[in-house]
């Protein structure tokens, strides 16, 4: 029966590769933020370069998958959902890349006492994105397990909101210039956006999952 699946095996591999790329991009983002806050400029440059490559790779894979789904008329009933899922997942890695680019361009002056909190915020945001990737894998392979991962995405997104809120309060309670406070607040927001994007994808995925299970 393997001749029946020849067409789809390659595409399955591409989808897995796309998910790996998004996951890897988010992990690189976390390390990049950590490197920046530790002041390791060289390592940070490497991470920034790596995430740009990964984001470009994810874009290429997404376009290729979309084209093949249409050209080969595959999964006609779920094609729109899968395309929407891949596009919104692409936004997560895109957000991570943009945030690192902003660190590169604007070089925020983060007080040493806040560095650990920024690192924790980035780690929690990346955790939400990792669980999102797991839930997407489940959507393709084991639909009943999607919810097991989705609730973790929501948990870490809320945790990121809480940490970001606490961090902003600390920033504005410190004796710093208003401009610096606002700058630090922006970076808090930029990092937090990664988990916000993950939550947006999770919301879509929850609906797609219901559609697939009825």
């Amino acid at each position, binding site marked *: 029966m393997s001749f*029946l*699946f020849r*067409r*789809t095996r390659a*595409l*399955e591999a591409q*989808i897995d590769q796309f998910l790996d790329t998004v996951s890897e991009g988010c992990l690189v983002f976390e390390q990049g933020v950590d490197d920046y806050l530790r002041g390791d400029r060289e390592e940070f440059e490497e991470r920034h370069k790596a995430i740009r490559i990964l984001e470009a790779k994810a874009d290429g894979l997404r376009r290729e998958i979309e084209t093949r789904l249409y050209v080969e*008329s*595959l*999964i*006609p*009933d*779920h094609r729109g959902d*899968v395309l929407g899922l891949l596009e919104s997942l692409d936004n997560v890695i895109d957000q991570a890349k943009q945030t690192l680019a902003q660190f590169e361009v604007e070089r925020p002056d983060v007080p040493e006492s806040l560095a650990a909190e920024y690192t924790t915020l980035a780690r929690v945001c990346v955790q939400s994105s990792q669980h999102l990737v797991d839930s997407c894998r489940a*959507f*393709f*392979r*084991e*639909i*009943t397990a999607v919810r097991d991962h989705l609730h973790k995405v929501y948990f870490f997104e809320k945790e990121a909101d809480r940490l970001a809120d606490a961090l902003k309060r600390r920033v504005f309670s410190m004796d710093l210039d208003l401009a610096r406070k606002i700058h630090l607040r922006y970076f808090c927001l930029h990092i937090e956006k990664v988990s916000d994007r993950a939550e947006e994808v999770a919301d879509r995925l929850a609906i797609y999952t219901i*559609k*697939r299970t*009825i």
Partner: protein
Amino acid sequence: MSWLFLTSGLFLGWSLGANDAANFFGTAVATRMLRFRTAALVGSLFVVLGAWSGAQGTAKTLGHLGAIDAPAGAFTVALAAAAALALTLSKSGLPVSSTQAIVGAIVGWNLFNGRPTDLKTLTELLSSWILCPILSGGLAAGLFLAIRRFVYRLRLHLLEADTWLRFAFIVAGAFGAYGLGQNNIANVMGVFVRVSPFPAVTRIGPWTATSVELLFLLGGVAIAAGITTYSRRIMVRLGTGLTSLSPLAGLVVVLATALVLFLFGSVELQRLLRAAHLPGWPLVPVSATQAAVGAILGISLVRRSGIRLKPLGKIALGWVVSPLVALLISLVGLYVAQNVFELPVSNSRRPAAAAAGEVPSAPLGGESR
């Protein structure tokens, strides 16, 4: 001349193929899971095979209902059924079937010629119309739950599941087309059995074929022609209307409908049941469309997505409207054939006496010429 009389049956077959194939391939073709060309090829092949094998099944039941013994009578009855189908389908949009139309038309012939209508056969037919959507709904509900559980356990990738589904749609569609040919061929050619223009036995190379087999083969080809030439639009329309169903549910509808047609049409299954001392089914032609509607309702029930009573009401209305319209057209048609075209619509004179359990009736059309 007798060949010419077959044309109304062939037209009925063509119309059956054009309309009913959509029940088996509509979802797959409309969602582009299957190309129409593939669906038409598989459907045509299996409908002809089913028609060929259906020579001993449902046609006998219709033969008991009315033994039409004049070519012009058979022609008019088949034409009345086809006209009733076209009229009720286009005017009311009811899920009417050729089965109900042909039964109405045959009863019309009985009434016209003062022939008794076998009440036992008529009761069997009427109860099977009610049983058909109920059985189909029950089968669909059970199959849906079982297949869904099985698919979840398999943990197939979405793309692999899609490939399997395409394959399953072809197999289920082929089975459905076979069932359609086997079960519904009686509607198309049943009335011509006693007036077949074919010799009793025909030798084709090393094989021999009876007159009924050849007649049904021809009817099968007419159904296949309907599938090939005119079913595409109906498949797309029906398939698009069913898109609220998931592809899996669509497949289950096809399977349940095919199973019901097979149950009511297979002589072999009947023999197996009897050999195992199990109660057999009456071999009667049933409506594929009504079985499909029953299956959709059965799935809605287990999915708890709410049951719309409108389709049920439409089926019930179809049970009444379709045979009545066919009966009326049959009466008018037979009158015209006998009195305007001066064609004999029946060979025998008035029956000597009505048998027990039969409804004796005076001929509405007077004495046959």
